[in-house]
């Protein structure tokens, strides 16, 4: 067993285990914590798969940004009564049945293709030279597929123009979402609401 395999199992175990813990826990803050660990371990998996930039991005935005927001939201709304909401046991049974079925299906699919199951032999040669560099990702986002240059011909040129349009769309989308979220979170306070809570 080489260290890649070892680390893969470590991270896979952590991300799956804590994902299950998220489902099993009924305390929102603990759920958020488990989610953090689960997503951070997933970032580890990304690093193992050679996607360094995506891994760092996962930590930075997903774990760092989204979850801080989430915990912030939890704390803002964390009245003791809402921190833990217990699920009915009948819901659990239903969820377990359907979830189990779905998992079985997906697992079967995952191992059904020979090419997917068998790992590439010459891994060591690959990791150090390809796919780890952010510049190719950046250039793809700017509309240039440098990794596809070798296959460049007139038919593929359209495909080589990269992701400039989606990138721009997402940029605008993010801006809109930011403004929208800020607007949505505002409430005009009703007169009298200051005193109504505690007394």
């Amino acid at each position: 067993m080489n260290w890649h395999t070892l680390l893969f199992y470590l991270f896979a175990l952590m991300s799956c285990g804590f994902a299950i813990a998220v489902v099993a826990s009924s305390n929102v803050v603990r759920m958020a914590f488990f989610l953090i660990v689960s997503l951070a371990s997933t970032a580890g998996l990304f690093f193992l798969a050679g996607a360094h930039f995506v891994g760092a991005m996962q930590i930075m935005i997903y774990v760092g940004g989204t979850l801080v927001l989430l915990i912030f939201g939890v704390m803002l709304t964390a009245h003791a009564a809402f921190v833990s909401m217990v699920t009915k046991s009948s819901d659990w049974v239903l969820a377990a049945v359907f979830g189990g079925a779905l998992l079985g299906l997906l697992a079967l699919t995952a191992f059904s293709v020979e090419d997917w199951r068998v790992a590439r032999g010459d891994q060591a040669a690959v990791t150090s030279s390809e796919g780890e560099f952010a510049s190719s990702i950046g250039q793809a986002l700017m509309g240039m597929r440098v990794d596809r240059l070798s296959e460049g011909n007139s038919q593929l040129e359209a495909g080589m123009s990269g992701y400039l349009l989606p990138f721009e769309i997402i940029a605008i989308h993010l801006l809109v979402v930011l403004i929208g979220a800020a607007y949505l979170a505002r409430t005009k306070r009703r007169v009298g609401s200051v005193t109504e809570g505690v007394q």
Partner: protein
Amino acid sequence: MSFLTDPVGVSHFLLVGAVMFVCGVVCMATKRNGLGVLMGIELVLNGANINFVAFGSKYLRSESLGLDGQLIALFVIVLAAAEAAVALAIALNFYNNHATIDVDRADELKG
């Protein structure tokens, strides 16, 4: 034990992704807490992301998706962040109006 000791392939990653996906779906279905549902969505997206990265990794398979896998994963991450912000804003707004974030009680339309 060849399954465990072999070098990992795409399938292994897919399995992890599947587990996270299912966890996310179950989480979305069972949690009554609005923020809990949100966390389920994050798990689902993350499970999908693992698949993209795995298919895009040259390390796991020579005929890989290449950069497209990573790029789509990136888009998913960014969009998930946007979605979380909006969902959180909705949750806060909902909480302001109803003093609860129990989604089962969100059955009336006017806020």
